């Protein structure tokens, strides 16, 4: 949140959190009629796509996972240059026979033959992973839902592989995992989105335009 505040203030837009730190609300200094709402990053796609929010800052990973044809619902205005994360597929490091998706597919077949069930991949990015593997022609896997601490899923016996976001790869390494060399599904970072479906009154439109003008001046 601090980085978002900094990014806006560098562009002459000063976000202010309400006096009470416990209240998830705020405003913009010197600009009336803008209400700030603090939400979990994963709820922002839904709010943008329903039109309850005019603008939102979140990672494009969650936008693309949660919104089908996302660009018809939320339009990316600007990348904020932080919160970099790659959505990747990772397998145990000791799988020395596996480096690429080709290997992964071959191992899926082998695994199903040996164990009688489809190789499990733990992730919360169901849609993005499925589309990626479908395009790559990988078969005989299954997705296991994991909403958090996904890197531990293999060690804990819940899955054979994972698909998750990573920035440095340190957590993966600590959990004895390695990234498939062609297993990059998506590059993500914090991004400002504008809702395509929200109603803008004349007044709201004016405010939006003046904000966008300030952002453009710096970029």
């Amino acid at each position, binding site marked *: 949140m601090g980085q978002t505040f900094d990014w806006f203030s560098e562009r002459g837009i000063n976000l202010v959190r309400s006096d009470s730190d416990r209240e998830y609300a705020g405003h913009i200094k010197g600009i009336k009629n803008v209400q700030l709402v603090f939400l979990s990053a994963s709820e922002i796609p839904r709010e943008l796509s329903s039109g309850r929010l005019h603008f939102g800052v979140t990672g494009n990973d969650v936008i693309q996972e949660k919104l089908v044809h996302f660009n018809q619902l939320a339009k990316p205005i600007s990348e904020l240059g932080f919160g970099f994360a790659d959505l990747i597929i990772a397998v145990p490091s*000791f799988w*020395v026979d596996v480096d690429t998706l080709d290997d992964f597919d071959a*191992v899926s077949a082998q695994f199903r033959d040996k164990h009688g069930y*489809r190789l499990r991949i733990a992730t919360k990015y169901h849609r993005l992973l499925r589309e990626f593997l479908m395009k790559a022609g990988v*078969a*005989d*896997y299954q997705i296991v839902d994991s909403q958090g601490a996904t890197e531990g899923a293999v060690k804990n016996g819940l899955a054979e592989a994972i698909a998750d976001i990573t920035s440095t790869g340190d957590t993966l390494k600590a959990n004895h995992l390695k990234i498939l060399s062609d297993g990059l599904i998506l590059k993500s970072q914090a991004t400002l989105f504008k809702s395509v479906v929200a109603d803008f009154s004349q007044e709201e439109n004016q405010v939006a335009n003046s904000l966008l003008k300030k952002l453009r001046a710096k970029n």
Partner: protein
Amino acid sequence: MTDLKDLSREAKRLAVVFEATGAQVVELDFLQISNVLLDLYGEDIRGRAFITNDPVYGEMMLRPDFTIPIVEQHMTNSLSPARYTYCGKVFRRQEEFPDRPREFLQVGYEIFDGANPEKADAEVFSLVNEALNGIPVRIATGDIGILMAAVRSLSTTETRKKALLRHIWRPHRFKTLLNQFSGLSSKPQPNQDLKDYNKLIDKFQTIGSRNIQEIKERLQQIKLESETDTIDPDEVKILDDILSLKDTCTVALSYLEKVSKKMPGIEKTLDNFAKRLEFLENNGISVDVLDFEGSYGRTSMEYYDGFVFGFYSETQKDLAPVATGGRYDALTERMGQGKKIPAVGAVLRPDLTLLLRENNRD
């Protein structure tokens, strides 16, 4: 907006064609246990079907088709020959094409009978053709069985054939593998000695249910693969020729018969092809003008492994197929846990046939 009365009248009109054969009319539950469908289609089905949860049975799906549950029922209840027909709604998620309907009627027909498979093929096709009488359609046919026989008769290892057969319905990956096996693109090479790999494994903690033995077996396999000769370019050429074949059934058959001189492994499937054409002729279908495509049925028809066909609107090219069908012998074996029976079937879309009938009238 389609008039629902018109739609149900149209569905009835299609259904009577199949009911007239004396086929057993079946009804199915809307909710199906996910596992059966997942095991068959893999994870992709989750992108196509509506999923819900039952506190006892776990994940369930709104039936995305009738064929699988009918096969399942037939294989558990009886093994005697049977004809089934049905008319009911199926449900599909539409992520890719939000404008397409999420629920629509299907009228379908399935024959479980090993006595004369080619005659059954012709019967299903002819009945669909009869039901669609008066609607301007383009018809495509193919035969996955010929393709599979061609792969099986390649002079190469069983491992390679198995890998190719597994991806016969994924043309892109099939091509990648074929290129690797035939030396057209580089294939996975062990970049170190097996002994070095063993040392490498020791550096990491072993986690998850895939064990070291499995890794060693696969390393061995990669080594074997790297030492195996590439597939003969002439055989790859034959496979490519079959895949790119596009002609009328009659011409395609005589072309493939010539091909089989060099690849005798496909002869039996060609005999079946010839028999099928004869039965179709007997049913009044002119096979001299019926199209045949070597690759037809390789995408989006995952369980078909023999004769395949589709009826498409002549005028509205972007419309989903009006009817599709084909043979699925292997599916019955997979779901029959050892038991099997040759089977063939087809589905029709009354919403689309009605639309095309109305357009045709205008």
